[in-house]
């Protein structure tokens, strides 16, 4: 009997959002914090929820749902903010946050998870691809496209 060999494991975080789930590399996340009062940034994009103080830095917090054109979840109660390391090529203090609706869950990925067919993915340039885990589609964000939106 042939045993299917799984590839190298990648540690990821399953990030619950309103109506969807993201999958991001664990190594891209610096910390998960409780949401606090966000400082609004006047004249900002609708997907920029505000700014939170983290360590000594001001970290912009984004609604991924709003980035995809969906409504911003009304309440942050029970949610978490994932603080991401700065994107490639950006300054070392340019951390950014994404608001999740609940605590992220760890996932160990190998090559065995089936990809989500393109037709089932949201029609958005902010989604690079998707994996099905336990039958549930999980969306992988396109960081390059996000970077273009964040730092045009």
């Amino acid at each position, binding site marked *: 009997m042939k045993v299917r060999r799984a590839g190298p494991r990648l540690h990821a975080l399953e990030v619950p959002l309103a109506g969807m789930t993201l999958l991001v590399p664990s190594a891209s996340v610096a910390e998960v914090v409780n949401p606090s009062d966000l400082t609004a940034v006047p*004249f900002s994009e609708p997907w*920029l929820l505000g700014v939170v*103080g983290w360590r000594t830095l001001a970290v912009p917090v984004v609604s991924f749902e709003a980035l995809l054109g969906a409504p911003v979840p009304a309440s942050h109660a029970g949610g978490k903010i994932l603080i991401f390391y700065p994107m490639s090529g950006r300054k070392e203090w340019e951390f*950014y946050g994404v608001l999740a609706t609940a605590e992220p869950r760890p996932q160990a990925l190998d090559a065995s998870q089936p990809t989500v067919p393109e037709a089932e993915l949201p029609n958005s340039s902010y989604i690079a691809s998707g994996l099905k885990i336990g039958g549930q589609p999980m969306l992988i964000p396109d960081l390059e496209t996000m970077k273009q939106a964040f730092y045009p």
Partner: protein
Amino acid sequence: MQLGGAIYLLPSTAGFTIEQRENLITNKSPEGNVVAWRSVRSSRFPAYCLDANLRVARHQQWHRAVFLDAKPQAVGLVADEVQLLPRAETVISPFTPLGLPPTRAGHLFSGAWVTGNRAILVFNPAALASYLQALGEAT
């Protein structure tokens, strides 16, 4: 400075003048964006009243205006309250707002004062002046 309940900081590196209300010419007309003018020799510089979201508002509960040294002319905004903070007590972190900048001079904020998980945004003086100058005198 406090604007409509929100607090913003203006860096001390920005050239500015704080004027008392009684030294300004207030706009008696309910029309228009300008709430008062500062008269210096033959020039007069407009001051605007902004709400917490930095949109033009018109109310009379203000006592001071902060005028930014800017080209081609100074421009001001009235504040509910203005307080000078000791430099030693105020550590400013760099901050880049995400998305498109709202003014020709860039983003309105270039830093933040972080205390705990609270962040107070620090104006980019050039962008703030650009924003105020673009408001003009009309409604």
